């Protein structure tokens, strides 16, 4: 990675672009702006950014199409900006390959945290992967399939373990219900969201300090789940 990470910002509102630019520049990034989807697609091809920040409500089309286009040739992290009323749009965008989303209005602090997390994941993916994952008091050894909490072995059922692996594989990323159901239970279960909810509950019971106020297995209401190391 040479120099500053490049961030492509696709957003039609000038004032929002201004503070997003200020916020990510403070994080030491370099910003390329685009006002429209068409422009965004061109910039993505020419500048090869390290992160895309994309507003879903652009005047010249659906941001989801841009995500699909990009995912054809790039795995750059994508952060979605969206209004709260568009739950379905968020899910579609995440299913299309977006990594995370921010709900408007959002503060600079939140934005910086998300950008940092996404960029960190990008740099880390180059390093040699370790079979050891640690969060809170929990230690998971993926090579030996052993889960320990505060030094004590924790017994997980096969489905619970598969679900845990699916969540651990993408730290910080929002995983949609459909994606998790498909990965863990199989394609015929994508509509049975209550399975997912019950098993996430099991994981929280076994691995969280306070299962009712989880700190690692977070709910993105009606969208999906996020594993926060």
């Amino acid at each position: 990675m040479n120099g500053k990470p490049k961030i492509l910002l696709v957003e039609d509102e000038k004032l929002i672009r201004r503070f997003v630019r200020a916020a990510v520049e403070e994080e030491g990034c370099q910003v390329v702006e685009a006002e429209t989807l068409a422009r965004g697609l061109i910039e993505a091809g020419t500048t090869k950014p390290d992160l895309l920040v994309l507003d879903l409500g652009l005047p010249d089309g659906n941001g989801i199409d841009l995500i699909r286009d990009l995912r054809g040739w790039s795995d750059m992290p994508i952060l979605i900006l969206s209004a709260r009323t568009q739950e379905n749009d968020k899910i579609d965008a995440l299913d299309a390959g977006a990594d995370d989303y921010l709900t408007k209005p959002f503060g600079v602090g939140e934005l910086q945290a998300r950008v940092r997390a996404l960029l960190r994941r990008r740099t880390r993916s180059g390093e040699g992967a370790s079979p050891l994952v640690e969060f809170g008091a929990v230690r998971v050894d993926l090579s030996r399939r052993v889960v320990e909490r505060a030094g004590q072995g924790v017994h997980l059922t096969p489905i619970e373990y598969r679900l845990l692996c699916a969540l651990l594989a993408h730290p910080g990323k929002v995983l949609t219900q459909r994606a998790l159901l498909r990965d863990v239970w199989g394609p015929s279960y994508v509509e049975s969201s209550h399975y997912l909810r019950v098993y996430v509950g099991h994981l929280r019971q076994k691995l969280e300090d306070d299962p009712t106020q989880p700190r690692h297995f977070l709910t993105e209401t009606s969208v999906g789940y996020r594993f926060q190391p």
Partner: protein
Amino acid sequence: MDNESGLAMRSTGQLRPWQSIAITLIACAATTLLATPLLGYLDLANIVMLFLLTVLLVAVTLGRGAAVLAAVLNVLLFDIFFVPPRFSLAVENIQYLVTFAVMLLTGLIAGQLAGGLKLKAQEARQREQETRALYEVARQLAGTLALAQVVEAAKQFVRDQIGAEAAVLVPDEAGHLMPAVGGRTSCRCEPHLAQVAQSSGELVRTDEIAGSDYASLYLPLKASLRVRGVLALAVPHGALALPDDKVALAEALASLVAVAVERLHYVEVAQATQLGMASERLRSSILSALSHDLRTPLTALVGLADSFFLVKPPLPAPALENAQAIREQAERLAGLVGNLLDMARLNAGNVTLRREWQPLEEVVGASIKLLGGALDGHPVRVAIPADLPLLEFDAVLIERVFCNLLENAAKYSPAGSPIEIGAARAGEVVEIRVCDRGKGFPDAGAQGLFDMFVRGRNEAAGSGTGLGLAICRAIVEAHGGEIGVDNRPEGGACVRFTLPAGVPPVVEEEPA
């Protein structure tokens, strides 16, 4: 045209007897005149044949009555003019009595057969003609676009084919049978009889009032699902009651009309659904456009206020305090806008809930996480029994209920005091409560608290619009639950709401 000729044929056989009598007389006389000159050349036995031929011809053309007349007349004429002694009824040879008897019998039998045949042919023609008329009306009804057209086609058919007046009655919104629109009719209906036909689904027939301008026949319009109305028939003034075959024809018509009425009903339903969907789409697109337009400046406001903190070198403390205040106010405004838009969406009626079966604790956890700093250091204690069944609700909306209740609790209770969330199964419902350690509601139990723009705790300085509880009620009621408040004996307010327990889907336990 067929109709007219059919009626004409009927009348020669039945309705105008003097004509057929005259024709029979002429035919018999003509036979006598024709046979007289042949008397010298032909045997009497062959002359008998001529008379038999006449009877047969009369029977075939004029029917049974004329055949009987001709048979008797021919025997008399043969006796008088041909059997010696001629010109008297007396008979020389007793043998001729056998001839007479055979003549008479043959004539009667031939007449009977021919007459029956003719009647059958007539009936067949009549039936064919009715079938064609039914087909025609079915075709017409299949092409109708409005109830008025159906009624008009039915009336026309009844007038032409049955010779009566018709009316179509359909139930209005209240279930009362009312004459369907379409043209004038002289058919007056007895509402009670029509109602009987409608509710029983059976034909009602009262021949006593036939001919009085009141409908004497009420046929239910039985469609596949339910009776769609009543077809009433009134025979014109002075006419007789309807014969059975006409009633059968009317029944056939009634079933065709029923199908047409039902088809139109479904067309209407489909149109209404389409209209409803269109207006629903419009409403939600207006709301989301509004939401976008309101949120965009708020997003800029929050972000730009935040970006004062990024300025290097740092701004003086009072400027940063102002920036922080701007940010907080903008966030409150955003919350307000969210509440207003939610209220608008809920008030617009028929909210589509995205109900899914899920554990309650998950949405509680998500709400606490979402509020974050807004809880202002109030610890939240959650006591949800582990065996509480899954509940079916719209997670986004119930999250909003918890957020509003938690926010209220944090706002109206002393700093640092805990907020408690509990849940328990209570029969068919699950009761959920959110309690604080504040002063409680001054007027607990008053449902007015849940009205829009009512603020229950008047000590609050400036904050809140009184929308929060109204939204909670709208959401809970949309889920089929109830919401209420009370004060705890040890101090503090409790908001309780219920959600129906229902029958959760089974999640199979895997072998551990």
